[in-house]
């Protein structure tokens, strides 16, 4: 009797050690890789994968950043799960011991806001577009469903709404800054701007006035195919506005950092082609399912995940303008 027990115990013991790396992997959160791109400005590059799709994808697909002032730190976008947010927090703490006081969300997409919860324990104030709360509320049931479906790997992820809203200002007004539109990290001011409906109806940008580093969220994308979740024509208009802004480094929502407007122009070109092709299809009364196959195909080779992202953009654009033709 005694012997059997021992064997059983031993068996479980062995199993435990075999499985323990898996158990530990579940709980142990590693700091994200971050790169210093300017004095006191850091970026983490997200992977070009489909959100939550692969077993090991926990929503680390968007570019995230943080800016360190003399007194405090601001985080720009928090990643696609509580876990990614925690990893970003660890990465920040490795770089600086200053308090993390602000989180700024560039828009309401999952891969940019789902990590917000990880920063609540720091007592942060979360800033977002004046419509960000509405955007998140509208998508609440869909987002919660997505989190639930992803299961344990993103356990603890929840929807956190912004505490403060960002005002909308034109580029001309940027010069006459008012304190309401900037947050001060100590000898370092960040200018926050909300934009009209473009990529989504919750897009905001962050300009670090010290280094002229410009976080534009998904308004500009590099490499990864832009997702059109707002209004394609408006989006082009907003890009025409923000391209006037004087910056040294632009951080797009996905892909590499930019020294000039190359990625902005590339995003704009894609949107224009998408719009033109969909309108052409509507004018010729071509059914949606056929337009999906042809619209913006000339842009295909310039982007990653094109076949996954472009069809949805086509359908939504088609639906928007269907009644006008």
């Amino acid at each position: 009797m005694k012997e059997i027990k021992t064997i059983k115990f031993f068996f479980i013991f062995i199993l435990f050690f075999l499985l323990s790396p898996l158990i530990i992997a579940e709980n142990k959160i590693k700091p994200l890789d971050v790169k210093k791109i300017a004095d006191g400005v850091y970026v983490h590059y997200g992977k070009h994968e489909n959100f939550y799709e692969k077993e090991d994808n926990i929503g680390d697909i968007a570019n995230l950043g943080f800016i360190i002032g003399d007194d405090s730190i601001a985080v720009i976008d928090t990643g696609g799960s509580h876990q990614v947010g925690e990893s970003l927090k660890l990465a920040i703490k490795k770089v600086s011991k200053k308090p993390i006081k602000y989180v700024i969300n560039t828009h309401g997409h999952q891969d940019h806001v789902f990590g917000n919860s990880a920063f609540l324990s720091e007592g942060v104030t979360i800033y977002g577009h004046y419509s960000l709360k509405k955007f998140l509320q509208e998508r609440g049931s869909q987002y919660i469903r997505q989190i639930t479906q992803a299961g344990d790997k993103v356990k603890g992820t929840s929807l956190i709404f912004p505490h403060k809203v960002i005002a909308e200002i034109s580029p001309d007004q940027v010069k006459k800054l008012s304190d309401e539109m900037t947050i001060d990290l100590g000898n370092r001011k960040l200018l926050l701007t909300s934009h009209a409906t473009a990529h989504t109806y919750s897009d905001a940008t962050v300009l670090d006035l010290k280094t002229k580093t410009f976080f534009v969220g998904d308004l500009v994308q590099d490499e990864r195919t832009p997702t059109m979740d707002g209004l394609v024509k408006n989006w082009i208009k907003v890009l025409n506005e923000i391209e006037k802004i004087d910056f040294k480094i632009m951080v797009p929502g996905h892909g590499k950092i930019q020294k000039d407007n190359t990625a902005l122009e590339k995003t704009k070109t894609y949107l224009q082609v998408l719009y033109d092709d969909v309108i052409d299809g509507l004018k010729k009364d071509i059914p949606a399912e056929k337009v999906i196959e042809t619209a913006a195909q000339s842009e295909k080779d310039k982007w990653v995940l094109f076949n996954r992202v472009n069809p949805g953009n086509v359908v939504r654009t088609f639906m928007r303008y269907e009644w006008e033709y």
Partner: protein
Amino acid sequence: MYRALLYITFALFFSLTFSVKAEEAYCAVSEECREARWTDLKQTIFKDIDIKSGEGIIELSTPKRAPDAAFVPMSFKTHKLKNQDDFITKVHLVIDMNPSPYSGTFKFATNLDQIELATRIRLDAYTKVRVIAETKKGDYFMAANFVKGSGGCAAPPLGDLDNMIANAGKIKIKVKNVEEKDDIAEAKIMISHPQFNGLQANPETTEMIEAYFIYNVEVTYNDKIVMSLESDISISQDPTFRFNFPVGEGGDLKITAKDIDGNIYSHSEKLAMQDNQLKIAFQ
């Protein structure tokens, strides 16, 4: 002490890894699960009716992956049938994993040897989409596709809520001749309607928006039904239908749509041949 800890860790590990997944997640990967789901649905909806393979009778066309799960284009087309008794009079639409799987029944003109219809549907989870054709003499033929797409039922409405409600019931008709078929025309019917399904959240209040959708559409041509649909919550916002109908020399094409709030919307257009082309006649 140690042992208890190990047991707990072990149990925890197993419960994490092998916790029973919801049917939904399981059916997304298991053909067996999908078959079981269909067996249940078939029994509920069609009882003991024998449903044969639709090969050579009806073709269903859907994308393999939904471009946007709230607007999934789908269409079906029947092959040309010779025998009057084999003409298809109804097509049932079943979306296995949607909250209300039996999504609609289309009826068509009884004198059509070939039927074609296209519309857009919502998908709640990876699912089989099925069309079951019913013939005049009572045979049933099914075509089914598996489509990857999820969240389309809870997806937020596209556009401004107030605008959508204000425009509910606006109807637009487009017609054109079908090439190489003298007596057949194609109609495209667009109905502006938010099609709230009860699963979407109101962004201002975060409460669920009450269901408000079109459950019946009837299209008549010179007072004869050419297409009708009894439907549920699976038809996308701003329902659109493209279908063929026998046209003759012209006449009145009339659409009547009813929603669950008791609204009846209707719209009609006079069609006439002009230079051998079917057009909407302007008086």
